[in-house]
């Protein structure tokens, strides 16, 4: 476990210049969140493509990148998922150096608790699957869980007793805003234009090929258009007549007031449904499942928060006197198999990266790397090939509802 930093780094005045849109670009990225910024960076760094614009309807990284619970892990069940998430985790491990920017990346590990015999069987299976894929994973008994995280309640007398947990020591958290700013600064230094307050209102398609975007700041021609719009992916893809198997839902999170350090790791629980870590400053950061109904509103229903707090108290009695300071929501795009859609579309030169639903933050550098390759070469990167749009027709789904760890 990393010690908490003595002080937070100072911010320079300007990390990137907000550019005026040019009339044309080699690549236009729609969505200036973590994925869009990482894609822009790796397009420039790995492929030498610097005539790139990142279009953001609000301000950079003000959507789900500002709203997630910052958890990073790669302990997914299937080979395809382990491939892309472990690639991301390896990049995380060198990212501060690569970007030359502090990200407060802290590998404090993650516990995924098991509360029933079936949970135990699935968890042990997942540990074995992880190890076969070179992902660090251990199965812990309740007593070992207590050693890693002393504040977890392991009494057998609670409604959902902890029967054990999977543990990924290399997992952890990072400061989400710094991640976005680090990518934005590095991409801008390589010549990428960051264009804020520029909403895409249409896509121009001629003879089955995308030729540009229409925006609130005028039309912009593009040789290639890469969508990275998270919860609004259906809307922007719809401009080109591309249907995506997505449903947009609010996903809520919350923080407590600042507390002394009591929680040294990250704890997730599917059965009672809460995930908790403690940020560097001291606030407890918690998330739960999505709100059931489709919505593009960045707020959710209170009963979700209520159930989440009940779950948190069951697992962590010590939180009984903590206060909920703030709750918020983001709009996440959920797929039928809880895996993302990354790759080509039926429209030529139009690429899609969406469907990360509740788990996009941890993938940020990995998907940026692979999506940049896909856009630059016109062919899916081997790590995102399994996540193509046509898997819903072929039936080769990547069913990660178990390891996604967030109720869908």
């Amino acid at each position: 476990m990393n010690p908490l930093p003595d002080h937070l780094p100072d911010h320079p005045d300007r990390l990137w210049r907000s550019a005026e849109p040019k009339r044309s670009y080699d690549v236009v990225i729609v969505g200036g969140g973590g994925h869009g910024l990482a894609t822009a960076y790796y397009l420039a760094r790995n492929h030498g493509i610097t005539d790139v614009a990142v279009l953001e309807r609000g301000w950079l990284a003000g959507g789900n990148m500002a709203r997630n619970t910052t958890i990073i892990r790669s302990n997914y069940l299937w080979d395809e998922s382990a491939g892309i998430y472990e690639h991301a985790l390896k990049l995380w491990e060198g990212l501060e150096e690569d970007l030359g920017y502090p990200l407060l990346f802290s590998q404090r590990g993650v516990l995924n608790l098991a509360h029933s015999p079936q949970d135990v069987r699935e968890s042990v299976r997942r540990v074995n699957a992880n190890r076969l894929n070179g992902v660090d994973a251990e199965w812990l008994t309740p007593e070992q869980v207590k050693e890693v995280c002393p504040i977890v309640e392991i009494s057998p007398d609670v409604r959902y007793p902890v029967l054990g947990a999977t543990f990924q020591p290399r997992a952890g958290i990072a400061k989400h805003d710094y991640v976005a700013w680090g990518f934005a600064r590095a991409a801008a230094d390589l010549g990428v234009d960051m264009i804020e307050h520029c909403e895409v209102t249409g896509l121009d398609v001629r003879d089955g090929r995308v030729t540009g975007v229409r925006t609130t700041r005028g039309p912009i021609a593009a040789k290639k258009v890469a969508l990275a719009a998270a919860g609004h992916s259906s809307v922007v893809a719809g401009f080109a007549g591309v249907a995506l198997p997505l449903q947009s839902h609010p996903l809520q999170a919350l923080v407590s007031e600042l507390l002394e350090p009591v929680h040294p790791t990250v704890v997730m629980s599917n059965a009672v449904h809460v995930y908790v870590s403690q940020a560097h400053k001291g606030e407890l950061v918690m998330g739960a499942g999505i709100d059931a109904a489709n919505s593009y509103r960045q707020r959710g229903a209170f009963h979700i928060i209520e159930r989440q707090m009940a779950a948190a108290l069951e697992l962590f009695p010590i939180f009984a006197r903590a206060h909920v300071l703030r709750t918020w929501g983001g709009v996440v795009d959920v797929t039928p198999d809880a895996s993302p859609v990354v790759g080509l579309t039926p429209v030529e030169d139009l690429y899609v990266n969406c469907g990360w639903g509740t788990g996009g933050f941890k993938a940020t550098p990995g998907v940026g790397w692979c999506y940049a390759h896909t856009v630059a070469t016109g062919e899916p990167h081997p790590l995102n090939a399994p996540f193509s749009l046509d898997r819903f027709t072929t039936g080769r789904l990547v069913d990660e509802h178990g390891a996604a760890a967030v109720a869908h």
Partner: protein
Amino acid sequence: MLLISCPWCGPRDEAEFHYGGQAHVAHPEDPAALSDEEWARYLFFRDNPKGLFAERWSHTAGCRRWFNIVRDTATNEIHAVYRVGEPRPVIT
């Protein structure tokens, strides 16, 4: 928290209901006649509009009956509640 007017029980909290997704999606008459693309479309693809959406709800903690709602997903405003089998109301 939505306030949903069950056609049988009246206005109740969202917590009493179960969500059923898009309404008016008919099961294909002859699934065997469909192409893989058509079957995939029925199985996995649902509308996801930012705006008016006709959707199914069930009053699971009350009368347990299913009904339909037209709701604006951009504002959460509920424009119409109607019974299963009735056509989608035209919202002007």
